[in-house]
């Protein structure tokens, strides 16, 4: 079974928010809410600045506090690709998962359920890429099977330096940032 993940090249990302908007239109995300977002981190003293821009979302972790804390089983691991999903009908909007996620990736949708990135599983299961990956004008986002050593994402991780967000959180995130 595949393990889906993303490899994102921070050298190429310009932080334009196209990924955020594509997710919004693809998934009908209501105004004021987003499933992905841009972080711009800069360090140093002018003019000696180092800056990393990256697009963030649910890390679809291998260790999932958001799933283990869910009282109803709404928050679950999908049977394809290890994608973390929420069954809207089962969700009671208790916010336990919102609190449990160290990445602040979840929010309560106005319709009352916990919402977050799905890796556009509805597209992936049709052989398409997630909307954010497909739209990116800098081609900085890559999606694929991390367990397949021949996949594009695996090859990128073998050939480049990378980091993950909050490696100490013990969540084993599946989104990797090339530096």
């Amino acid at each position, binding site marked *: 079974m595949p393990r889906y993940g993303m490899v994102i090249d921070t050298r190429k990302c*310009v932080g334009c928010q196209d990924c955020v908007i594509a997710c919004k*239109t693809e998934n009908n995300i209501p105004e004021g809410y*987003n499933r992905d977002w841009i972080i711009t981190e*800069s360090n140093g003293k002018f003019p000696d600045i180092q800056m990393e821009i990256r697009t963030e979302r649910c890390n679809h972790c291998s260790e999932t506090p958001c799933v283990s804390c869910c009282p109803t089983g709404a928050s679950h691991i999908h049977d394809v690709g290890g994608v973390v999903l929420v069954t809207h009908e089962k969700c009671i909007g208790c916010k336990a998962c919102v609190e449990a996620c160290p990445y602040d990736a979840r929010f309560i949708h106005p319709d009352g359920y916990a919402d977050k990135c799905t890796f556009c599983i509805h597209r992936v299961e049709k052989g398409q890429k997630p909307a954010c990956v*497909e739209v990116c004008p800098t081609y900085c986002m890559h999606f694929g099977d991390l367990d397949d050593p021949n996949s594009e994402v695996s090859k990128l991780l073998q050939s480049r330096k990378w980091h993950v967000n909050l490696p100490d959180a013990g969540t084993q995130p599946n989104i990797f940032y090339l530096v």
Partner: protein
Amino acid sequence: MNSLSRRKFLKISGATIVTAAALAGSAKTIVSAAESYAKPKGLQVIPSYCDLCFWKCGLLAYVKDGELWKIEGNPKDPLSNGRLCPRGTGGPGAHYDKERLKSPLIRKSERGEEKWVEVTWDEAFDYIADKMNKMKAQYGPESMALFSHGIGGSFIKHLLRAYGSPNETAPSFAQCRGPREVGFELTFGDVVGSPERTDIENAKCIVLIGSHLGENMHNTQVQEFSRAVEKHASIIVVDPRFSVAASKAKYYLPIKPGTDMALLLAWMSVIVNEKLYDVDYVIKYGFGFEQFAAEVSQYTPEWAYIETGIDPEVIRETAREMARYKPATLIHPGRHATWYGDDAQRSRAIALLNALLGSWGRKGGFYVPYSYSIPKYPYAPYPELNKEPLDNPNGRYPFATGEQISTGIREATISGQPYPIKGWFIYGTNLMQALPNRAETIKAIQNLDLMVVVDVIPSEIAGWADVVLPESVYLERYDDLNASPFREGFVGIRQPVVGAPNDQKPNWWMAKKLGEKLGLGAYFPWKDVEEYLDTRLNLAGHSLDELKKKGIIKGASKPIFFEDGVEPEFATPSGKIEFYSKQLEEAGFDPVPRFTKHAEPPSGYFRLLYGRAPVHTFSKTQSNPILADMMSENELWVNADLAERYGIKSGDRIKLKNQDGVVSDPIKVKATERIRQDCVYMVHGFGQKSRQLRSTYKKGASDAELVTKYNTDPLMGGTAMNVNFVTFEMEV
């Protein structure tokens, strides 16, 4: 915007379309469009091209059960390669924007008070035609001027030409890329054009001077820039602000604002003195190189250091870096070039630096673009003009060739010289934000007998109009064909993918109806725009049906570089690349660019700089709910140390006061290490004052409002706007 409200919205709007069309008894296409959009079931994917900026990327609109769902890039489109920029992806927001203009309006109180009577299209056209006929009789047709931005204005342009006016302009020349086009034309005999003919993708060294690609989201350029980053191109960024592009650069040069010319001259002196230039290219294609070399060799990096603050060794090192990769070194010409007043000369210096490195016409430099040839519609000739255009009387700005100076028309409207301008027709450009010194714009407007604004939203300029005509957005209308000059020839179509929600109409329909009222029906021989487009396409061996399905038709590919067989041609007086310009000399200007010292901010003041954000275009998109969700106001970038000295911190709201005492709306501070201490920066287009656009009203501050001072470029009349200084007003 959830799916429920979207459905409800469409249901209501669908009914409105039919009623409006029936009442107006108008063009058959409108009715049939409404019918065909009534309830198509399932998913339709319709190709068109984007209008969120002027790049005109090919798109695919996804319409689900008759409702616009999402927009993606058309993979066949060479501009977008199937990937739109964030604005284009947010295009559905233009259709769903709740604050759109809904019906024609006629002013019922003083200009600028934004008080209106809703009227029918017939009433609006009668009002306009009556005024235009009177003006024609009293002052002549030349008393009507057109300000138009974007391809959507093409039918309105046709109308005004048929009416007999020679005065037709856009702020995109004298307030934007004009100096660049003039500087390059003086040097190479050709302009850079749009889309820019830059081969960023193949450049091995890219130099950006104040150009902030990535924040400035011109799609193809950003895509190519990203590929260049991937291929480890050496990137040199010159900017007072540590831009996104600067974070990708090998060299970041934090230049003192206003001194770019000194850096350019010093770079050229290093390249000339160390004989690093492309000798064969310069000998073969250059004119006046010896005089040029003698002139520039005096500008040492040590001299430039005093002006620019850039370490002389860094100037040498970066000059050598550029030479190392020649001719695949691209010194990007930028786009918005109206900075200090010697901008055409600065652009010429950029052109000359490229010429030294042999990049014009070469891979990794500038390609030679070409267009897909589509004959024009075979109209009857326009009436003979009574008068010359008045934007540039007596050739006051001798190199303002090709395009008209918008601020020249404004000036003539105020003075009445050399002849009166009594009417402004404005299409798709918010002159309140685009032109410098708003007070002059308002003064000019007060002299008008008629001001008509065609827009999709109640923009600030619409607030000053006598008549406002609500246009359907790009997703709801046909426009003229797009055959931009590019790397390959192509023609793209803009076609309706959904119906307009209210009584909005396409510009072609307005032009035809108004033309008929004005007795100019003979200039509109086509039944509707489909017939017009089909006629043009037939002349090129295609048909409208074919293009409607394909979205884009490509031509045969041709070489675009000298090395691939393009014959080098330079339409300059010498027929060569003019390192030394006799035509400039004869007109009394510097034949080789020289450094001019520009005024510096007095103590306690900071130079106001402005730029772009990736999610907005000028002041056109702030009410788009999707894009507003990404960025609803701008921020004032203030150097962190400076902010601390003034006791202000990120998130504080302050006002700015400029050298003329003009005070801005409150703006949120972004205290950051990413900018120098002698300037502040904000994204252009915010701080809007239209009371009808509640979602954007006074959101953030307007740089344009603070641009009361401008320097005029003596070569071409461009209005340089980076010459305003501001201080902080703490009490908000």
